[in-house]
């Protein structure tokens, strides 16, 4: 049994590690108002570079730190130069999406190079612990504290006394005014990306040494924790990020002490949501407000949607409907069933993200809610599967809307952070609420799909069922968008202040969008549960949320037909070309990057 002092020391050490990530995020947010979702990937890269240095090159510790910092900084500079700088004049959401794409690409490259299996990363430090008061502290703790303090000091000196540091601060406070003083903003961006990457990479290496283990799942966790710490401290506020990180480390450590390890992340995300809702500018926000997101016409790539004649849509529907009558393989049907399920999720997301402008990064949570509800209804209450799925949709609509509603007043990137956090919270609640969800064991033996008492077991019948549900949802959504309601949705997306001035109640319309979108996603999750017969808290994960987002952007934000086309394309094409599973995520990442760069309006155009 460890003492409270031990938990405090552990909290501060972990907080130090978070701080190295969060400070980088804060620097980048400061100068470019961008949440860098690739920060965790750089942390991952840092950990693996550290592994190569220590295990293969046998470098001494100080040299290892320098190698990691320099190599990570180079990765950061490359990301800035080739991933983000070309997007300077594009739509506002573009750089955010690009960093998501970059993170997928980097994570997959690391996984393909080093295999997904965890590796040990020895710290080369003697394994002794010193008695301090009622707790103990080891050399690695001291190293982490030392690196944290040294970095903070170097950063302080840089920002306070160097010319480039002044340029960074000036740019963070007023980009245009800084340019008018002759500051080259590209150089400032470069500098902060390099610094952020160096700190993030070293942080990843230290964490690897702390747990003596590294694996590719570290990346997303690090991004999430860094974002939490940064937002808690006030986005763009560098000292705030440090304090936010230490606070987060302590909250987690004490939470673990009281409730157990599986609660660690739950506390982190609850802290984030509480701060976002109560103090969106962070705990230490001065009178200076976080700069407002720009208003009109900057969210969605302007385009004229491709007009598809009605007969062509009808023809496509007929072709897909009669497809199983031809001798197609089981495998093709399976693939298309997955596409229809993803299509429903994409319909939901394209409504929420495209039509009303709330870019959700946690959409898989709606699948999970629908899936668990439907599975439990049918298993424990013997509700017929067809009704249970509808129940899943309703629950997703209600709970999803309820969970997101406190974040309705947030805008832009903050919406994305909130949805990401809520998505994680849903998955963590499922993990920890064992009496209902059966916790980490998951739910098995879910009854198969059935309709009016007939089980749908053949692939053909499942195919028809899911296709029919998707088409019905799409028709409903199409109706919705051409109605008065759809126009109000778009008015809110394009300029919420003006929309409010016209008397539109933002909360009501956002709720309506989430209710409809939540239903579609919940139904998709419900069908999936009965199809898979086994689900757990990881079945519906962030990767699927991002895949759905890629589908939606591929089809054209807000575009109903585009959502379905995008789903078929992203699920189908890798199958057609027989691309191995481990390369798929890489391809999704690259597709996202290319789209953002060259065709932000997607295949069929935004609406």
């Amino acid at each position, binding site marked *: 049994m460890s003492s409270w002092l031990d938990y405090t020391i552990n909290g501060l050490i972990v907080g130090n590690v978070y701080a190295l990530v969060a400070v980088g995020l804060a620097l980048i947010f400061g100068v470019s108002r961008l949440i860098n979702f690739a920060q965790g990937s750089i942390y991952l890269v840092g950990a693996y570079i550290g592994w190569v240095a220590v295990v293969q090159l046998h470098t001494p510790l100080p040299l290892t730190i320098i190698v990691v910092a320099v190599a990570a900084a180079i990765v950061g500079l490359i990301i800035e130069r080739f991933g983000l700088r070309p997007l300077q004049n594009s739509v506002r959401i573009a750089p955010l999406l690009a960093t998501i794409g970059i993170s997928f690409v980097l994570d997959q490259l690391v996984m393909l190079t080093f295999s997904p299996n965890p590796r040990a990363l020895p710290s080369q430090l003697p394994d002794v612990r010193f008695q301090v008061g009622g707790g103990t502290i080891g050399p690695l703790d001291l190293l982490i504290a030392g690196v944290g303090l040294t970095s903070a000091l170097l950063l302080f000196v840089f920002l306070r006394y160097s*010319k480039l540091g*002044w*340029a960074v*601060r*000036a740019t963070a*406070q*007023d980009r*245009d*005014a*800084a*340019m*008018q*003083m*002759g*500051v*080259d*903003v590209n150089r400032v961006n470069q500098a902060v990306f390099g610094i952020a990457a160096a700190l993030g990479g070293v942080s990843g290496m230290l964490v690897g040494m702390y747990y003596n283990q590294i694996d590719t799942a570290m990346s997303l966790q690090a991004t999430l924790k860094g974002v939490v710490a940064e937002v808690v401290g006030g986005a763009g506020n560098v000292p705030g990020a440090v304090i936010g990180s230490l606070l987060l480390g302590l909250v987690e450590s004490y939470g673990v002490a009281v409730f157990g390890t599986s609660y660690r992340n739950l506390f982190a995300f609850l802290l984030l949501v509480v701060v976002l809702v109560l103090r969106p500018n962070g705990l230490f926000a*001065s*009178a*200076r407000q976080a700069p407002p997101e720009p208003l009109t*016409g900057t969210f969605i790539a302007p385009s004229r949607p491709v007009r598809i004649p009605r007969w062509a849509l009808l023809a496509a529907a007929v072709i897909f409907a009669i497809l199983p009558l031809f001798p197609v393989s089981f495998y093709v049907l399976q693939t298309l069933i997955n596409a229809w399920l993803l299509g429903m999720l994409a319909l939901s997301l394209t409504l929420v993200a495209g039509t009303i402008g709330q870019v959700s990064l946690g959409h898989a949570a709606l699948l999970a809610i629908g899936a668990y509800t439907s599975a439990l209804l049918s298993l424990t209450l013997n509700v017929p599967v067809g009704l249970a799925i509808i129940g899943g949709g309703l629950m997703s609509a209600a709970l999803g809307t309820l969970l997101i509603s406190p974040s309705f007043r947030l805008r832009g990137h903050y919406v994305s952070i909130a949805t990401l956090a809520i998505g994680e919270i849903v998955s963590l609640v499922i993990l920890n609420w064992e009496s209902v969800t059966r916790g980490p064991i998951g739910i098995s033996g879910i009854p198969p799909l059935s309709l009016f008492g007939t089980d749908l077991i053949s692939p053909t019948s499942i195919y028809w069922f899911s296709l029919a549900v998707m088409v019905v949802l799409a028709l409903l959504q199409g109706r919705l968008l051409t109605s008065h309601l759809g126009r109000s949705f778009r008015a809110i997306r394009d300029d919420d202040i003006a929309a409010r001035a016209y008397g539109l109640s933002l909360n009501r319309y956002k709720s309506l969008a989430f209710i409809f979108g939540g239903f579609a996603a919940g139904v998709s999750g419900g069908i999936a549960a009965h199809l898979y017969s086994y689900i757990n808290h990881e079945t519906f994960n962030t990767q699927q949320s991002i895949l759905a987002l890629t589908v939606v952007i591929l089809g054209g934000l807000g575009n109903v037909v585009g959502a379905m086309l995008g789903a078929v394309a992203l699920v189908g094409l890798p199958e057609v070309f027989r691309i191995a599973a481990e390369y798929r995520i890489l391809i999704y990442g690259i597709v996202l990057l290319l789209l953002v760069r060259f065709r932000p309006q997607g295949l069929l155009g935004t609406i």
Partner: protein
Amino acid sequence: MTASTPEPLLALSEVNTFYGQAQVHFDLSITVARGHIVCLLGGNASGKSTTMKIILGLVKPRSGDVTFDGASLIGLTTPQIVRHGIASVPEARRLFADMSVRENILMGAFVRNDRQAIAQDLDKMLTLFPKLGQRLSQRAGSLSGGEQQMVAMARALMSRPRMIVMDEPTMGLSPLYVDRVLELIRTINQEGVSVFMVEQNASLALEIAHEAYVLQTGKIVLSGSARTLKDDPRIRDAYLGGAEAA
């Protein structure tokens, strides 16, 4: 124009500017003679601030040319334009609110590397703006509007510009500070810095300007020497409050 007009330092010729589909400037042509104060007058949303942004390269015109000292500024980035010798006092001052007054003023010298001369210039600013002396280590955001305007002007001068462009330098200031600012603009100009300023308050601007242009929804509708414009009935009616000003 009279034969004695010095050669132009800054010239905008037939500039057309758009924000998306909306056209803001229609064949806008303006010249600022070396050593002069030129004022651009116009009502709200007539395109004055956009003119400043065109000069500074913050907004790119769709067609037309901007030349400074004979060389085109089109295609240059804002920092490059600043290095050519154009400094700015932006609309609403736009200080770096969380940096100290000293840091703000020194940011103005960002394009220079001559440390000693920069230190001397800082001292010079404190004689020109004596009030700032006691405020040097204060957060710029904590100053009053008038004091902030002084900082913004000092900051602009620190680059040793050949020309300063100012966007509504008297906006929101108390009458006392308005006079002070106008006086300072004149002083700066007498030391050889050309000034291009945007103003809504025509009577004030015409006090100190050599020439003025009147902009109306993106078109120049009137221009000439300040002296003639002051007596022009159209200006009097539109901007000087008609009979009252007479």
